[in-house]
């Protein structure tokens, strides 16, 4: 019986690894990213080659990368977290408040407080979704309102200014080590850790299983509620970290910080190849998707497209990405059915 499905591959391991990488979605969007950068640089050399532009190119997406990584983990488990923008605002304002009320507080404590704040908000989301058996869309819609309202009440019309925060903290926002900005290093480190966890650790693989078929995962004996809750805690913690980085990067924190960024995060994740129904995709793709979104925003004015059309371009990209995904998966399932029917 010659099934094309179960015959072992005749390629060498290196060939197989290479073909997996080259045919992957992540490579495709990385190529698109490089194409965008190349096009913008051709138009205006200073997009890439001026003194600040290299730093800005790497620095600006780092916040969205953190949000996209957290969102990807949640979406892989077949949920969604719309409250990350409000969590970011809460953590950023907390950061500013800590510095204002406690001058001389160590920066590491502020980082820990921001992450803990985000993790707590994520825990609330996770408990409601996992134990309440309510769709995450609705719960995080509600918590989006609630957390944003709490930040607005807490901050009122105050805003934290750059002068309220210590210089070393703000320097984090612009400093570079070996010409790579510190914030980007943090984002890449987080990405590497989460990416490794999702790919190799049991918890990560179980999250893919839960997203792929929650009922089967339950019957198989996986601790679905625990994994889903930890996915939300991770997403919240990363949003909290993103809030601290937001305060470091921009210096000014008002109560409207991060409004609308949750949809950008979901868009980045979708562009990055994570299926909205969960079970597939990688955090690497989500991170590259986030970089692509931010870089396109910055490249459009240089390419001659007025600033105002950015959102339309982003929207078209998201739709294009999911249509392409659908076309490929339809083609793939047709091929598999043909192969099966050939026996």
């Amino acid at each position, binding site marked *: 019986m010659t099934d094309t499905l179960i015959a072992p591959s005749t390629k060498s391991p290196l060939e197989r690894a290479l073909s997996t990488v080259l045919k992957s979605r992540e490579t495709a969007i990385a190529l698109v990213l490089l194409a965008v950068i190349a096009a913008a640089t051709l138009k205006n050399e200073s997009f890439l080659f001026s003194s600040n532009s290299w730093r800005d190119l790497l620095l600006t997406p780092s916040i969205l990368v953190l949000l996209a990584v957290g969102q990807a983990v949640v979406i892989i488990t077949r949920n*969604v977290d719309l409250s990350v923008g409000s969590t970011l605002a809460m953590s950023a304002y907390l950061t500013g408040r800590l510095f204002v009320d406690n001058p001389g507080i160590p920066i590491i404590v502020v980082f820990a407080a921001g992450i803990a704040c985000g993790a707590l908000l994520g825990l609330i989301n996770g408990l*409601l979704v996992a134990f*309440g*058996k*309510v*769709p995450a*869309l*609705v*719960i995080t*819609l*509600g*918590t*989006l*309102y*609630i957390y*944003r*309202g*709490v*930040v*607005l*009440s807490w901050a009122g019309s105050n805003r934290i200014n750059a002068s309220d925060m210590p210089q070393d903290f703000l320097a984090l926002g612009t400093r570079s080590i070996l010409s790579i900005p510190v914030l980007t290093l943090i984002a890449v480190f987080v990405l590497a850790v989460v990416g490794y966890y999702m790919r190799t650790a049991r918890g990560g693989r179980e999250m893919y299983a839960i997203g792929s078929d929650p009922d089967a995962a339950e019957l198989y004996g996986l601790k679905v509620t625990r994994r889903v809750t930890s996915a939300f805690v991770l997403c919240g913690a990363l949003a909290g970290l993103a809030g601290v980085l937001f305060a470091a990067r921009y210096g000014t924190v008002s*109560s409207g910080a991060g409004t609308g960024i949750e*949809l950008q995060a*979901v*868009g980045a994740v*979708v562009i990055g190849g994570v299926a*909205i*129904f969960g079970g597939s995709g990688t955090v690497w793709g989500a991170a590259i998707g986030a970089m692509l979104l931010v870089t396109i925003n910055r490249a459009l004015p240089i390419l001659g497209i*007025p600033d*105002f*059309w*950015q*959102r*339309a*371009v*982003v*929207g*078209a*990209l*998201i*739709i294009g990405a*999911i*249509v392409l995904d*659908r076309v490929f998966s339809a083609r793939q399932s047709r091929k598999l059915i043909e192969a099966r029917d050939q026996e």
Partner: protein
Amino acid sequence: MTSLITPQSTKTREYAAFGSPLWKRVLLTREFAVIALLLIVVFYSRSEVPNFDGPLTVTYLFLDIAPLLLIALPMTLIIITGEIDLSVASVVGLSSVLVGVLHDGGMSLPLAALIAIVAGIVCGTVNGFLVAYVGLPSLAVTIGTLALYRGLAVGLLGTKAVTDFPEKWTDLATDKIGASSVPLVVIPFLILAVLFALLLHFTSFGRGVYDIGLNAEAAGFAGVNVARTKLTLFALAGAVSAFAGVYYTLRYGSSRGDNANGLELQVIAAVLLGGVSIFGGRGALHGVIAGVLLIGVISSAMRLDGVTANVINIIIGLLLVLSVVSTSFLAWVSELRQKSGVRKRGQETT
């Protein structure tokens, strides 16, 4: 040979027409809970909140929530089928911008409004085509079109705002019916509400909407044209959102790219509050209208009471979370009761 047809000597069992008595079927529903909550809030505000009794309250209440009321109607049907449409607010913004740009270019207002509504139908049809015929998940598609349509709106107008609309039309948006304090915009809303209620409860199309929500595959086999139904619903949402956009422009007298930013979340919150299940398959319009009014009354009462807008947001968020958690909790309770009932019946037979 004995006849095979023996007369019935045993008494036949009588079955009631419905499973539970009428009072239970009316009072123990989510819709009634929302309506009761609305009445409680209204009566409480009339006595406790200063100035709530005045004629202006009703006027501003309806003027402010008219877009919500309008868009909640097709959104209810979409959510009953198990889909969702996050792009409605962007269609409102796009239609608002189109009215502004076309009017600025010299077109008459009614024609500009008509073109805006046609544009809304096109936007909705694109959504519907991608969801129903290409088979993409509506959450992802409408997140994309939310950005696309909003981007088109902002791109067409930039940072400008068109504000010179003829008084004849802006007055039409804010005028009241005769001597009452109810604004004119309630009339188109009532017409649409009646039409949607007829569509949902008295046509086979509406029956199909519920069937798709309960089990789309089974509905397809039962003869419901699932794709065409979904396409129609999304197109209707686009049309109604565009109409709401025209109203919004005339009511505030200003056409801006970011008009009605964030409205979609309020609409979805109101629809879910009104008893429609996010899983699809159950819900009714009267609950949704009560849900929208509830949000409007709470916002307006709190504003009159001097409470800041963010606390209002917290309350709406809490209401939303509580309403869905309570549904889930009630389902769990009834499941427990069913299981213990089965156990008891099992014990009786042994």
